């Protein structure tokens, strides 16, 4: 494999803690929060993360493909989750210790429940509002009721973190800054 050239583009309004592991070509959008001990590896192709996302401790985001891995806005990656999806839309929640394989594309408003394994052998795309939950990784489609309130909560969550994290952590700046 060709050696990875590190290139970190971090928006000035993003909060990325010093103690994160970044590798490869990574772009982080405005108002996105990356907690310490998170890992973002652009192994083969670049990773572009949108606005208002929250990436918690020990979360791992990996791009194994050549194409750009695009992550939309206001997604929540909870503690210890591992995501390798080639594309992720907006307002998704990947819960604690969930694992999503590179064969799965995630659209919008999807929820991957705590500790759920989503590892299909063939490529698949989760439709909007897909919920995966429980020990058997059962699936449902959410009605979407309550999504405005949840989006509001996500927004406030990120806002609070952007205020609090810099008080206790050194921040990382992009290459340009």
């Amino acid at each position, binding site marked *: 494999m060709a050696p990875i050239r590190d290139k970190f583009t971090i928006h000035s309004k993003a909060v990325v803690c010093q103690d994160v592991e970044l590798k490869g070509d990574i772009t982080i959008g405005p108002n996105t929060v990356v907690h310490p001990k998170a890992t973002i590896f652009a192994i083969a192709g670049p990773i572009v993360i949108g606005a208002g996302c929250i990436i918690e401790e020990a979360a791992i985001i990996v791009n194994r493909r050549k194409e750009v891995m695009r992550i939309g806005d206001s997604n929540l990656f909870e503690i210890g989750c591992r995501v390798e999806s080639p594309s992720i839309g907006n307002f998704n929640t990947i819960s604690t210790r969930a694992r999503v394989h590179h064969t799965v594309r995630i659209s919008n408003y999807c929820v991957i429940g705590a500790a759920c394994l989503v590892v299909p052998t063939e490529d698949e795309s989760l439709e909007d509002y897909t919920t995966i939950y429980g020990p058997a990784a059962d699936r*449902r489609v959410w009605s979407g009721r309550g999504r405005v309130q949840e989006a509001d909560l996500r*927004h406030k969550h990120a806002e609070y973190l952007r205020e609090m994290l810099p008080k206790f952590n050194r921040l990382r700046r992009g290459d340009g800054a």
Partner: protein
Amino acid sequence: MGPSIQYYCPCLSGFPVQTPPPPHVASSSASFHPLHSLFFCEECDAVRCNRCVSIEVSGYYCPNCLFEVPSASVRAEKNRCARNCFSCPICRTTLSVVASDPPDEGDGRSSSVPLSTVGEPPFFLYCNHCRWDSAEVGITFEKPTGLAAQLQKFEDSAAESLEFERLKEHFEPFLRTSSLSSSSHLPSVASHHMHTSSITAAASAALARDIPGVGKYNPHTRSRAGRDRTVNRDEMPEYKSRVEVGLFSQLGSGGDEGDVEFLTHIETAGEVAKLEQRWGNSWTTSLKTSDLRPLRIPLHSKVSKRCPTCRHILIKPEQKAQSVRYKIKLVAANYLPAMTVALPSPQSGPDASRRVPAKVPAAGDEKNFTLMAGKSYPFHLALTNPLYDPIQVRLSVQRMHVTASTDSTAPEKARRTPFAVSLPTSSFPVAAFAEAWEYDDDEDMFGVEDDELGLEPIGRGSKDRDGRGKVKTVGVLERRANVTVVGGEVVIGKEARGHVKFNMLVSYTYRSDDPLPSEDGAGTPSRVNAKAPEVKTFTFYTVIDLGPITPREESKVEADV
């Protein structure tokens, strides 16, 4: 599963017999229990199990909001929480009450507009885990309060519930007249059960009273009370059901052709509600996942347990729902030595190292190696003393009247001697329990010399090596703190099958604080020493299962591989 040990409660044996059933009998498992589930009655000086104790409910509470429900309202509220506690019909998570979203401005990203904190009606129940919401089944509320009452109204209007109410009404007059005479035949219920105390009798009487719709079926008193019952029965008008039985399926409760029709057209298994999703319902519900409704959370109860013989309380929780402590807690683990059994990893055997890799699958749990017919294996028993005084323990294997009739095709030999167990024949000490900080240094905790213990090397448990130069297997192997590890050995017969499972009698002698008269059988001192204070011996049975035996033919084949 690795080797296991369980403790015997004699409640199932007929009274004069206190010995456990043979371990290879399947039903023997009902008499043996893990130590942590057993109680100990100080009055009777006996082990008690959950099967024989009598149970009293000391309070009801909601496991979600921890509200303590007065027993008067438990029945009216149908044993479920009447506050705002509901569980998701899909995944059992506790539901939250959520207001409706404000009108959506397109993509939901206009979140800079702060939402009102009150929320807008209609309200609905929402599962944070699987994202089910009650609006999916048409349940919404105008106000976010008093939801349980609204849901209960719905439950109570179920066809079955109405029918049940009607039945109760119908039998009411009959019950009232029969309750007058009922007190006379209740004691006979109690006397029928050998271990039933008067408390249990009172409880069962209360139970019988508490279910007004159900007739008091009592086979033992029927003939006696038969006469006046028939009189009553004659007086009763015939019951007419509210709804024809055949019509229930049309009321949405499932059954019959409706279900067949539904099942023939399903596309995914998820359309059918799983058993665990319907299990907690009060009444039968439809098979469809889409018909499942939120459930009010069932109440839990706190119970006290009493000794069946002397009625002393063995365990009693604190009243408060928030508390996880006990006011009284007489558990067997505080009286009997805790024992664990292990098969040491078989490297020590002469040809073991060659054989084992072939036997153990890649998953490689060392404890799971197989016992093979025609071989002998050492095993370890670790005893932990919970008492503040040292104990002297003696172990012996219960003689077995083996397998017999179960498998008549097996060769004679196999039935007679499947395996033989050797245990240390002399008694051995287990030091007193002490809190960790009571040990001055490591020496106290570990290095106890054998001489100090006054241990006599006896028989097979001889000091170091036997004739063939093997490390000793039978005898005391290790002593540290309040734990003593002893070794035993099992020799498995060439034609043996089944499990290496045997009953073991454990008796331990300890210093007694309150000397009992010696006519009390359990209190007979085994070793009367002039200097020693009052000593008592307690004896109990255990069953040890070392694991399944691999029959010889199979082991040969596998060894060749």
